[in-house]
């Protein structure tokens, strides 16, 4: 019996070693950058999704092909995927929700992007890489076997430029689960938006501690800045600090590595 126990413990220790358990945060950041640096996933995704999903105006309808694409991609991710939809009725569309349950599953880190404004759409535009980046948070956590303490949830939602209608079903869903959100990170890819800049919507005192602790992890990977931003996204009353980041399409892989790293560090 002792031998069996010893074998089980040894196997668990080996598995933990191989899957990266017990690594420091800095080592994990290095892993994340290496993960995005080694392959061409992002460029492939960008090209593929823009071939699959044509230009569209902002709104509730017409983004089902985008949702379908990410659903298909999520189903291919390593490990078990938890995929949900919010169907907002005939002709209106869906939101997609990908989830990696945390050890403390009543606390959520939300990573969101708009799935209905695409390239040269009429209003808000160019959220394609925002969606890819949000999806890649899910993919990277799965692939690198990062077990979050809090639930990491990816939301690709619709009607960003209108009434944010796509966010409301999510809010109801979350309320029904009596959850608390620790942060909400909104990702965009506006060519006219800021570069290499996270906006951090934390209260002053937390922001001060944040700027002491978090930026050093990114040294050596790029010249990132962390500006204090709006504390909340009033459009939908989610009571959590609002973070934003605009992906630079000329350096998308590194930017997405930065986003994944931030989500991991803030967990």
């Amino acid at each position: 019996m002792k031998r069996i126990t010893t074998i089980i413990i040894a196997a668990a220790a080996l598995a933990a070693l191989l899957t990266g358990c017990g690594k420091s945060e800095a080592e994990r950041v290095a892993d994340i950058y290496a993960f995005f640096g080694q392959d061409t996933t992002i460029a492939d995704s960008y090209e593929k999704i823009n071939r699959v999903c044509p230009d569209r105006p902002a709104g509730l309808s017409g983004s089902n092909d985008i949702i379908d694409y990410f659903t298909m991609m999520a189903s291919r991710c390593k490990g078990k995927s938890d995929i949900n939809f919010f169907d907002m009725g005939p002709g209106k569309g869906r939101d997609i929700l990908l989830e990696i349950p945390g050890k403390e599953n009543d606390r959520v880190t939300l990573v969101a992007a708009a799935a209905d404004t695409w390239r040269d759409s009429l209003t808000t535009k160019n959220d394609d890489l925002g969606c890819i980046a949000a999806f890649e948070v899910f993919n990277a956590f799965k692939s690198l076997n990062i077990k979050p303490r809090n639930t990491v949830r990816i939301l690709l939602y619709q009607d960003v430029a209108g009434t944010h209608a796509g966010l409301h079903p999510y809010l109801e869903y979350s309320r029904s689960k009596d959850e608390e959100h620790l942060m909400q990170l909104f990702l965009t890819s506006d060519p006219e938006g800021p570069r290499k800049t996270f906006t951090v919507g934390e209260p002053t005192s937390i922001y001060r501690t944040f700027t002491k602790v978090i930026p050093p992890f990114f040294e050596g990977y790029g010249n990132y800045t962390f500006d204090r931003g709006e504390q909340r996204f009033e459009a939908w009353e989610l009571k959590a600090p609002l973070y934003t980041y605009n992906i630079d399409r000329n350096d998308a892989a590194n930017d997405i590595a930065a986003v994944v790293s931030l989500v991991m560090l803030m967990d």
Partner: protein
Amino acid sequence: MKKLFIISAALLLLASCTSLKEEFQPVFTGKYKEPDKAQPAQMSANTTIAELAAMYNGKPWDIDKNIIIAGKVSTTDKPGNFYKSLYIQDETGGIELKFGRNGLYNDYLPGQTLYVKCKGLTLGMYGFSSSASYGGNGMVQLGFTDPSGEYETSYLENPLLIDQHIFKGETGTEVASEVITESQLPGKNDTQKNNRYIGKLVTLKGLKYANEAFVLLYINSNWDKKSPQNRVFLSPSNVASDPTAGITTWAMSKAKMTEYLTSGRWDAFRVGSGNTYTGETVGDFKGEGSYPGFEKAAYSVSQYFKMGSKEIQIRTSGYCKFSDVEIPESVLSGKSTIDVTGILTLYQGNIQFTVNSIDDIVIND
């Protein structure tokens, strides 16, 4: 044929047991390398807990001074009655550190000294009420600024950020409770500044059941929890003839809660807050054998006791391991008193008492 099969199977089983027996032999008798011991923080406090609490001036303060307090951990979240928080105490008082984490007992041991670098944290109060009839102070506590603005402090969530403020010192002996008398209990406007027992582990002796309980139910956990339309006070102020609402446990788990609701025991209780009632009762929400929205959660219960003329609410979480433990009949009938050890706190000027475990409640025969 069948017999032959059974005999063969039995022989095979015996053989496998024998081989398993061999497997049971110990394979390693050496000594594993001792894990590296974490070095306790070498720091010293420059402010007492009472001095820090005295700096609270009625609104949240983002601490901008180099204040360091130190105190021993006096609570454990292992049995679940303390949840995502712990108390530390020094000679002058105790204070709650709001951690947004479970399983704190693994990281912060009872009796361990913690040093808190307060600069960058927020000093706030939870549970203050200005009501003339029942109002008073709550508890001064330490956390981060609440981004939602709903509370004066929020939880310390992120381990990297927590490590900038909380430092683990020596693991010492567990905190010994101090036995206090009725005259040493705090008044409704006290804080750690003027009552050194607030927030500390103390023992109260000879408490007598006051035949009163309090539970705040929500009709729907998705609705506004402050709205009178969503609240039911199970209390004597609601149904005077039913001061305990029939609750004979320290708290109510989800299962216990459902049991009470579906029995119809609370149907007469009115919906509303305090003296504002909507005209509806719990019974109006009865569906086909259920009460939608009511039975989603476990509930904390305040059981009222008297220490001399002072009222003590023993407040217990519905999620703790001993939530459904029955209070002995001899206590409920007033024949027996109890001695209780726990953290002394104030909520809206009332004394609330929280025990670490059921072993902290001793029945006097």
